[in-house]
């Protein structure tokens, strides 16, 4: 525990000054140094919260699927961070933020403090290069971990690890470069403050690709093609996961200032209100449909609201946030029902929450931006820019994913065998049950 202060070294100098009769003189360097220190503290706080979202995703995905696959999903969420943090360090960060073409970053692999000049797209933030990497890597991990839920209960573990590499080195960083890394989209004025599109929709549309290549779980659709419910094995765990994700979102959104700015509290508020409004509208909407307070849909609603506000959290008013939330809360329910209808099996609703609501939320900034949004008299321009961004990112994420995953499927196989799926991935991939002391039931009964 040795202290290598940056602000304090300067203030020590300051303390020394009085001895030279210079009391009260400030060298003009202390304040920026302090501001940088504060920015760094803030960004690390935020990044650490976002890191914890890995646990949240793991809980939600595991809770919403069956007991026989519970360890497997936890392990996928652990390993995609493990692999993602390494491959984003070696390659992804440079592809996303490094100087290069408008389409891809080409320098700054294996970032170190000395390389600050390789990332001119990050010059606007005062935090050191590795702090920026730390904040960014947890976002990359979010993007990849979204796929884990969509592919749950049937994807081969080894192939999933390769997918983690692909998402964090190619799929996510390339469109990320367009919007945040100084690429062609940032030039257009595209607004995606904290990543409804750049992070969430990329994860969501890549999820659609993985689900299409994988196909539905055994038993998800009956002979008549009707969607069967495959209830999640631990709803309290899934709910805890949503609380953890919501908690982490206070790093995701306010932290995307990457500086201790005046508006971080405002962003926390838009984030809160949109999440709440969406949970509420999803709740009411399903209640009207089914006369039941559906837990799963309400939880998806909350996440949809948080995803939906992520793009505009710094640009919309609290009331705008509420309206955005109300919209995506209903949308996510419609979307989940739609994908069930068209026989696309997404066990946790990842495509709906992150893809559909991520893209929609980004679009809605074009309406609700208090400066340039259509509803605030800003005209249609911003909406068009948002649409361009949303569609190009979605196209890239889905297109590159489906090509890469198809190739993976041919080369090493994407899906476990029927037998393995039947037994459950905990045994077939990891050789151990998640809950060996409990009697796991194959017969549901209710009073």
């Amino acid at each position: 525990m040795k202290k290598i202060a940056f602000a304090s070294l300067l203030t020590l100098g300051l303390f020394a000054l009085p001895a030279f009769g210079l009391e009260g003189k400030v060298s003009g360097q202390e304040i920026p140094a302090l501001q940088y220190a504060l920015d760094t503290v803030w960004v690390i706080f935020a990044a650490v919260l976002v890191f914890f979202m890995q646990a949240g995703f793991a809980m939600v995905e595991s809770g919403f699927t069956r007991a026989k696959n519970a360890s497997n999903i936890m392990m996928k969420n652990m390993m995609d961070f493990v692999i993602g943090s390494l491959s984003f360090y070696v390659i992804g960060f440079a592809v996303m933020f490094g100087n290069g073409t408008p389409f891809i970053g080409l320098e700054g692999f294996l970032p170190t403090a000395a390389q600050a000049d390789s990332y001119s797209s990050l010059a606007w933030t005062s935090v050191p290069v590795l702090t920026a990497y730390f904040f960014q890597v947890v976002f990359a991990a979010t993007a990849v971990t979204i796929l884990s839920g969509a592919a749950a209960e049937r994807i081969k573990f080894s192939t999933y690890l390769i997918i983690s590499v692909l998402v964090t080195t190619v799929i996510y960083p390339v469109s990320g470069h367009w919007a945040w890394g100084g690429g062609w989209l940032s030039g257009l004025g595209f607004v995606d403050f904290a990543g409804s599109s750049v992070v969430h929709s990329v994860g969501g549309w890549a999820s659609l690709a993985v689900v299409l290549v994988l196909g539905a779980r055994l038993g998800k659709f009956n002979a008549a093609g009707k969607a069967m419910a495959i209830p999640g094995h631990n709803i309290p765990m899934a709910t805890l996961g949503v609380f953890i994700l919501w908690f982490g979102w206070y790093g995701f959104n306010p932290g995307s200032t990457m500086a201790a700015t005046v508006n971080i509290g405002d962003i926390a508020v838009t984030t809160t209100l949109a999440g709440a409004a969406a949970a509420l509208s999803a709740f009411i909407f399903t209640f009207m449909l089914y006369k039941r307070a559906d837990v799963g849909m309400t939880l998806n609603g909350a996440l949809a609201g948080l995803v939906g506000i992520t793009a505009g959290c710094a640009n919309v008013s609290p009331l705008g946030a509420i309206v955005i939330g109300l919209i995506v809360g209903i949308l996510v329910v419609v979307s989940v029902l739609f994908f069930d209808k068209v026989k696309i099996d997404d066990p946790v609703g990842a495509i709906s929450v992150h893809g559909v609501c991520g893209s929609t939320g980004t679009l809605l900034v074009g309406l609700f931006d208090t400066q340039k949004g259509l509803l605030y008299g800003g005209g249609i321009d911003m909406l068009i820019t948002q649409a361009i961004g949303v569609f190009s990112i979605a196209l890239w994420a889905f297109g590159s994913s489906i090509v890469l995953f198809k190739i993976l499927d041919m080369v090493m196989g994407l899906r476990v065998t029927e037998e393995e799926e039947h037994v459950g991935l905990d045994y077939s991939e990891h050789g151990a049950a998640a809950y060996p002391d409990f009697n796991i039931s194959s017969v549901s009964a209710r009073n």
Partner: protein
Amino acid sequence: MKKIEAIIKPYKLEAVKDALEKLDILGMTVTEVKGFGRQKGHSELYRGAEYKIDFVPKIKIEIALVDEDLDAAVEAIIAAAKTDKVGDGKIFVYSLEECVKIRTGERGAAAL
């Protein structure tokens, strides 16, 4: 010797046990089972998809006893388990050929 197998509603276990204790029947084995019968399961909802649950939780009580105790035991179970609603359950009676108490090796009625 006979074996009674009674399928009852779970929340009636306490009452049935007490009723049998009153008859000095102090041994029984209980299994949690799932029943299918006139009392139907339910259609439920999960994330917008309906699913049918066909089974109902039940308790199976098994009692080995001497022939003389049979009728009283059956009556006691009926009295304690009855709610007059569908799903009250069944009592099955089998012939028991032999009974051994593992601790002592005793056999027959002495082993009960």
